[in-house]
């Protein structure tokens, strides 16, 4: 019986191994799972042997990554088997399959306890091991006492006691109350006398946990720890089997020194002397040896000793010895030691008096910043960041800037941020700071978050001396033919504010500045256009003596944008034109910006947030405790509100006197008259609207929410937006006073709409939209060129949703029919709205559902893209190599066959890409292309006019760089080829979407400067494409 059982397992494993591809493997696994399921279900009296066999198979399948959602009970029940072989399987498989809070575990607590307190040593071991590995709080409460007894029992053999020690450690971690401190300090002290090094290994781990929680209770153990170190350090009484490559248990040594780091000091002079002797021997006596394992073990001890020396704040001599050692390590070639050298040197920064010695290694550390290993580069960056101060800031920041050119994407944002912080904190003079930030934007604009350029604007605004310099620099950068958009923003802003300071220089008349900025205008995105328009208004103001030609040019631009698709831009254009007619008021309103209130650097805050992803012991923390240089006057007065996707720095209040002078109409302008968006101050102007309306606009959030949406021109509605805009009919007609981005929206989606849409493009059912009141689900069926979608509108409330309206804006390539949508969705009810599609031709345009409802007094208005995308009208097809090549050759060259090299591709492995293609309805045909790094896919496209059209796709990947590939697409229809290529491209390349909030209304969904996308280098690239 037993034999066939194990044979069955081996046969199954080799079957799985022989599967040619994932699909076959899945079939084989499914078959086996089906088999096991039936056995478990039908054969009530399954023998333990058989159970054992099936349970092993389950574990194997689970390990392969398949969901095993049944049979856990059978595995757990084996724990109660009377014989060792079954019990053993039960314990091991249970501890692999289940996690600590699984309900099945509760059922076996009694059995486990009986095994622990029973006389059978092997059963004790099994039970202790499982509880040690997955025991949770409940185990803690019911077993801790028994486990403690085993640990201190004199009759138990070491093999049980060492397991009991670690089992107790687990239970203690789950519930620290299980170890009673009073009784335990003496017990622990006795346990540390343990002669068996196996038991001592486990006991020391337990001790580290106990002492880290309450060092006061364990002072009596301190001398014992030093004794252990002495014993091991001198290799006294250490059995051969406990030496590792000749070193007496390196693990106990490391753990003991770790425990000692929890004691704040060592009072007793004898103990102290003994410990320092041990440490001295380790520091002096560790040599580099050839045997890599021996070397690692010795250095594991050495690095722990270094940490202990630093902790004990030893005399200067010993400290310098440590720094010298670390200095040696940061220069060695062996990567592990260098990594640890850099890491420990960063920790050493906390020690006073050694900074200068550390600084002497600066050149060596900079070399590591260029190491091929990202782990090492990270450590070097962290160390450089930590050791930077006023004396070396120039050198270090310059190095960082230089490194930016070649740094990998994974590090660029962190690098840019750190360089910006250092430049700000330790600038020897302000003009240097401006230089650094501008260089930063120039070299790595994509990785410079908006916070960084807002910050430079704040400094320039607050420091008059700096203004002419900054403006000159901005003017110089504008000469460059290719400029990052952030640079356009910052230059335009600075020149808008301070162009008059340059007026006497050559090439700096208002007109020349206008011309050079205007050259950039056609290539920039909306958020920059907004800034540039403000700059023009300011240039116009400084246009003295008036140059009518310049005035006409600027006015014509304002007029052009008066009917622009983006409300923000439109509003600015309208307001600036109105302002120009105001004459003298213009000068007041467009006067230079007042100084910013002093505030904490948003960058430091951001850096701290970014820390989550980097090592804990980062220098940033150390950094943030240090003094800043005197060069920059920054104090911590008010926190910024930098977390929103658009990163508003907060509303800036204008000194009221100034405001009153310019706006006689409304004093209430003070509060809302100035809003800040994208870091730019939007001057708000008295407008030719009745005061009553203005008041109405200023009162309460309702009105603020309202107007922009209604001011949107008609074509706006045809845009594919994924935005929610609240509209209030009352506010119609009046001009907006706030920017759309600032709207507080009372109803926000609680799902990420863009993400939902993207998911639904790949599958056929799921949630499209959800907020507090409603959930919209989708279920779709696709048949050739026909599509059938059912919208499920679910009211989540106990009161009805009224005025429900759904309108579809079909793109020209789709014929659509939406059945009637009921005006009211009853409480807690779901209504279905079927929707029919007919595809006319290939296009990537997307149908938009205009959806609105009223809840209470709030009108909620949502625009949702419907996942009726091009790939839904595809049907996968398999072709033979002959058919493929015949077609491939006949479709030669553009426009029928198009090829493109994509960069910034999401790094997908080939199987992942194949999966993606499958969900796009593209059939992956393996074996056609002989190169294993290439992928061939075929599909047929259906539309009403063309019926089935065969499409062939070939993807060539580069195994050494998964972020780029070449794609070739061929079909008999040039439009189809192009549209399909673009569509597939969108799936392969990360397109930044406005993920965190869909409230951000009319703006381009693919704006490449969305800050949320900054974490994602691929997205950045996509932005560039």
């Amino acid at each position, binding site marked *: 019986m037993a*034999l066939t*059982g*194990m*044979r069955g*397992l*081996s046969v199954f*494993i080799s079957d799985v*191994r022989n599967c040619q591809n994932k699909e076959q493997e899945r079939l084989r696994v499914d078959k086996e799972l089906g088999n096991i399921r039936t056995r478990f279900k039908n054969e009530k009296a399954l023998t333990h042997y058989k159970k054992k066999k099936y349970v092993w198979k389950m*574990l194997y399948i689970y*390990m392969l*990554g398949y969901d095993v959602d049944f049979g856990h009970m059978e595995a757990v029940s084996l724990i109660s088997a009377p014989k060792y*072989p079954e019990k*053993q399987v039960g314990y*091991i498989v249970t501890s*692999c399959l289940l*996690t*600590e809070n699984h309900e099945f575990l509760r059922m076996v607590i009694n059995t486990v306890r009986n095994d622990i307190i029973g006389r059978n040593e*092997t059963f004790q071991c099994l039970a202790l091991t499982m509880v*040690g*590995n*997955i025991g949770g709080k409940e185990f803690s409460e019911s077993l801790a006492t028994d486990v403690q007894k085993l640990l201190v029992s004199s009759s138990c053999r070491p*093999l049980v006691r*060492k397991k009991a020690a*670690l*089992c107790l*450690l*687990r239970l203690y*971690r789950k519930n620290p109350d299980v170890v009673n401190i009073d009784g335990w300090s003496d017990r622990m002290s006795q346990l540390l006398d343990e002669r068996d*090094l*196996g038991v001592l*290994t*486990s006991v020391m781990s337990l001790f580290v946990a106990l002492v880290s929680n309450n060092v006061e209770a364990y002072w009596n153990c301190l001398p014992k720890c030093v004794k252990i170190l002495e014993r091991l350090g001198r290799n006294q009484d250490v059995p051969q*089997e*406990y030496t590792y490559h000749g070193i007496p*248990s*390196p*693990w*106990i040594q*490391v753990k003991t020194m770790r425990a000692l780091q929890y004691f704040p000091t060592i009072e007793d002079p004898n103990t102290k002397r003994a410990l320092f002797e041990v440490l001295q021997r380790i520091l002096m006596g560790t040599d580099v040896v050839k045997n890599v*394992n021996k070397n*690692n*073990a010795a250095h*594991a001890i050495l*690095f*722990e000793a270094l940490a202990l020396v630093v902790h004990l704040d030893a005399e200067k001599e010993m400290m310098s010895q440590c720094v010298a050692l670390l200095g040696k390590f940061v220069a060695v070639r062996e*990567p*592990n030691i260098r*990594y640890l050298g850099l890491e420990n040197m960063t920790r050493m920064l906390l020690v006073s008096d050694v900074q200068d010695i550390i600084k002497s290694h600066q050149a060596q550390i900079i070399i590591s910043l260029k190491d*091929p*290993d990202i*782990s*090492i580069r*990270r450590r070097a960056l962290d160390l450089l960041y930590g050791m930077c101060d006023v004396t070396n800031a120039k050198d270090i920041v310059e190095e960082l800037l230089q490194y930016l050119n070649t740094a990998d994407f994974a590090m660029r944002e962190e690098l840019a941020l750190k360089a910006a912080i250092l430049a700000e904190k330790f600038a020897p003079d302000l003009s240097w700071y401006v230089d650094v930030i501008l260089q930063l934007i120039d070299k790595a604009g994509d990785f410079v978050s908006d916070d960084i350029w807002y910050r430079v604007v704040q400094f320039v605004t607050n420091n008059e001396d700096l203004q002419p310099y900054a403006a000159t620099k901005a003017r110089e950068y504008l000469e460059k033919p290719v400029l990052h958009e952030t640079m356009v923003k910052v230059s335009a802003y600075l020149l808008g504010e301070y162009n008059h300071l340059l007026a006497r220089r050559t090439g700096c008349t208002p007109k020349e500045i206008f011309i050079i900025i205007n050259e950039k205008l056609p290539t920039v995105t909306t958020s920059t256009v907004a800034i540039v328009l403000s700059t023009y208004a300011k240039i116009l103001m400084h246009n003295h003596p008036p140059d009518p030609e310049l005035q006409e040019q600027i006015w014509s631009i304002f007029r052009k944008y008066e009917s622009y698709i983006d409300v923000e831009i439109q509003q600015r254009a309208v307001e600036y034109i109105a302002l120009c007619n105001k004459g003298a008021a213009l000068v007041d309103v467009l006067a230079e910006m007042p100084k910013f209130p002093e505030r904490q650097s948003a960058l430091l805050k951001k850096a701290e947030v970014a820390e*989550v*992803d980097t*090592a*804990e*012991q980062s220098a940033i923390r150390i950094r943030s405790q240090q003094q800043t240089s005197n060069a920059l006057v920054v104090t911590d007065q008010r926190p910024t509100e930098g977390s929103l996707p658009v990163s508003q720095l907060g509303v800036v209040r204008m000194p009221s006197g100034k405001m009153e002078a310019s706006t006689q109409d409304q004093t209430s302008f003070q509060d809302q008259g100035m809003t800040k968006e994208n870091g730019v101050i939007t001057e708000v102007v008295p407008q030719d609207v009745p005061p009553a309306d203005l008041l109405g606009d200023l009162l309460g959030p309702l009105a603020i929410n309202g107007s922009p949406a209604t001011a949107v021109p008609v074509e706006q509605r045809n845009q594919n937006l994924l935005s929610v805009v609240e509209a209030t009919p009352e506010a119609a007609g009046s001009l907006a006073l706030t920017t759309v981005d600032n709207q507080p929206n009372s109803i926000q989606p609680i799902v990420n709409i863009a993400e939902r849409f993207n998911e639904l493009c790949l599958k056929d059912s799921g949630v499209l939209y959800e907020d507090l009141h409603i959930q919209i689900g989708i279920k779709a069926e696709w048949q050739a060129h026909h599509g059938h979608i059912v919208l499920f509108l679910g009211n989540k409330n106990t009161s009805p949703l009224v005025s429900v309206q759904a309108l579809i804006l079909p793109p020209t390539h789709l014929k659509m029919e939406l059945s009637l949508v009921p005006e009211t969705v009853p409480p807690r009810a779901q209504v279905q709205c079927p929707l029919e599609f007919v595809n006319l031709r290939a296009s990537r345009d997307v149908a938009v559902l205009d959806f609105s409802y009223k809840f209470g007094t709030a009108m909620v208005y949502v625009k949702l893209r419907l996942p009726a995308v091009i790939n839904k009208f595809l049907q996968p097809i398999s072709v033979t190599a002959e058919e493929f090549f015949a077609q491939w050759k006949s479709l030669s060259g553009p426009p029928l066959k198009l090829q493109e090299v994509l960069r910034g591709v999401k*790094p997908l*492995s080939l199987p992942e890409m194949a999966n993606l293609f499958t969900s796009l309805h593209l059939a992956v045909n393996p074996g056609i292309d002989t190169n294993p790094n290439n992928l061939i896919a075929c599909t047929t496209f259906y539309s009403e006019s063309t019926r089935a059209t065969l499409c062939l796709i070939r993807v060539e990947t580069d195994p050494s760089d998964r972020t780029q590939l070449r794609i070739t697409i061929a079909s008999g229809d040039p439009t189809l080829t192009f549209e399909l290529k673009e569509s597939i491209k969108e799936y392969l390349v990360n397109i930044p979407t406005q993920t965190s909030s869909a409230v951000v209304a009319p703006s381009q969904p693919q704006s490449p400067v969305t800050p949320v996308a900054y974490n994602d280098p691929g997205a950045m690239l996509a932005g560039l494409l």
Partner: protein
Amino acid sequence: MIHFVILISRQGKVRLTKWYSPYQQKERSTVIRELSGLIPTRGPKLCNFVEWKGYKVVYRRYASLYFCICIDPDDNELEILEIIHHFVEILDRYFGSVCELDLIFNFHKAYYILDEILIAGELQESSKKTVARLIAAQDSPVETAKEEASSISNMMSQAM
């Protein structure tokens, strides 16, 4: 402490997983997917540590297998690196020059052995002799089954 131990092959196949911190099924798959994208792609002359999600992964490659151990960022990396080697030496002694196939067909053995080396994410026993003795003692009640299994694995390895 050690949060988990994972053995992955160069092709990304999982050969052993052991979780000492509570990870749900989904998280486990994510971890495996991310690490099999991260670790096998690293070049041969780089250091054995990878900083990952605020943790550190200490890994070591033996032939086609990567042994990966995830620890807290302030744990001692080299100590963990040698725990991996200690584990491999014991496997080697047990199987007699261990290869990936041994671990595939006797994956359960690998679990037994690991349980004798680590508990609760901490090292339990650093003596190879002691571990070997305990495993041998465990084997005796299931001796016949083991013989059968290893003969099959021999057959398999010859057939490969």
